[in-house]
């Protein structure tokens, strides 16, 4: 069957092209195949990166095309790293990053563990749980804005039902204390299913005979959980943390929809601050330096994580 296909392809190839290809080595043909990918990578990833690095040492402003571009050395980096407002933005990002990952891993793993127990209708529950992840962040941001409304929002009513406080006595998005937690809640609601799915894949990859062997050795359920389940799901869990960590470090759309960085700058994450510098204040050189700082941080973290992941896999 495959011989016939090869014959048909050979017949369909124009004689001129066939002659040209026949003269090429395997290595040259391989290069022809990967050249478009390499070209795209250079054009879309490498060139903008090098250009951003170059711009970060200048006072370039993208809205003033004819203006003379001056080399400012490391001044942009110096300004960013001595600015107390940027420091506050970084702290807001750290708060968001830490708590979202903590809750997503905790709830995601618990849900996966429960779903993995074979019960009637668990496929339906999986579908229902996974729904938030499929929505657009703009849509999620918008409807959570309604849910957080102090007068008509369902969230405030549920909290008041548990605590006995008046629903209109607190504002999730307007309060300096509560706003950072409100974005944590929404991101956790939206992305916990993703962590759950990855954990579920990990749990389903554990063969039953390992548990059966542990049962024969009279290992308790708790022992089985800590010596079989957790170590075998760990690579998957680390992968989920890596994905969510990098994604949340760059979080933009959801938070812009919910709070727009406010009140004040309590929820102004680094990516929102970066966008303001680049496209509202038009300090392109400064914003480039900011982007490079964030890039190096994410790249460094990703390197550590990939190394840790390989180690866990080798165990």
């Amino acid at each position: 069957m495959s011989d016939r296909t090869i014959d048909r392809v050979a017949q369909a190839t124009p004689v001129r092209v066939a002659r040209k290809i026949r003269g090429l080595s395997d290595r040259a043909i391989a290069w022809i195949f990967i050249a478009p990918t390499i070209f795209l990578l250079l054009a879309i990833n490498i060139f903008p990166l090098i250009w951003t690095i170059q711009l970060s040492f200048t006072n370039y402003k993208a809205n003033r095309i004819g203006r003379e571009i001056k080399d400012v050395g490391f001044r942009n980096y110096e300004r960013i790293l001595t600015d107390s407002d940027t420091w506050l933005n970084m702290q807001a990002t750290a708060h968001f990053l830490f708590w979202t990952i903590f809750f997503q891993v905790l709830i995601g793993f618990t849900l996966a563990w429960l779903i993995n127990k074979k019960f009637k209708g668990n496929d339906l529950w999986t579908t229902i749980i996974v729904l938030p992840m499929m929505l657009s962040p703009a849509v999620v941001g918008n409807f959570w804005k309604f849910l957080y409304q102090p007068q008509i929002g369902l969230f405030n009513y549920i909290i008041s039902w548990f605590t006995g406080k008046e629903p209109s006595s607190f504002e999730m998005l307007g309060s300096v204390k509560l706003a950072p937690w409100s974005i944590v809640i929404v991101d956790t609601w939206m992305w916990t299913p993703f962590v759950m799915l990855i954990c579920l894949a990990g749990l389903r990859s554990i063969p039953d005979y390992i548990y059966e062997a542990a049962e024969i050795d009279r290992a308790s359920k708790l022992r089985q959980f800590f010596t079989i389940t957790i170590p075998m799901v760990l690579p998957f869990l680390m992968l989920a943390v890596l994905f969510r960590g990098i994604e949340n470090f760059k979080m933009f759309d959801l938070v812009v929809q919910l709070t727009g960085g406010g009140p004040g700058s309590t929820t102004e994450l680094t990516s929102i601050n970066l966008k303001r510098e680049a496209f509202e204040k038009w300090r392109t050189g400064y914003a480039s330096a900011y982007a490079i700082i964030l890039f190096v941080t994410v790249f460094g973290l990703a390197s550590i994580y990939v190394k840790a992941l390989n180690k866990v896999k080798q165990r």
Partner: protein
Amino acid sequence: MTKFLNGLLRLRRGPWEMVATILIAVGVLMLMQPFVLWAFTYSFIVTLIGTVMFIIVSHFPEGE
């Protein structure tokens, strides 16, 4: 400890990757901590050194 120092002197991947990892982790902690501004100021250079070091030392030979 002696094994670690020997690995460093003989340019082995394991110990050098460990040093780079520690530098990156310290740099990120310095970047995100809420306590002292000077730590935030020097965080980038620490992370950058760690990251570049990580890329270089990941090409070193494995220890025996």
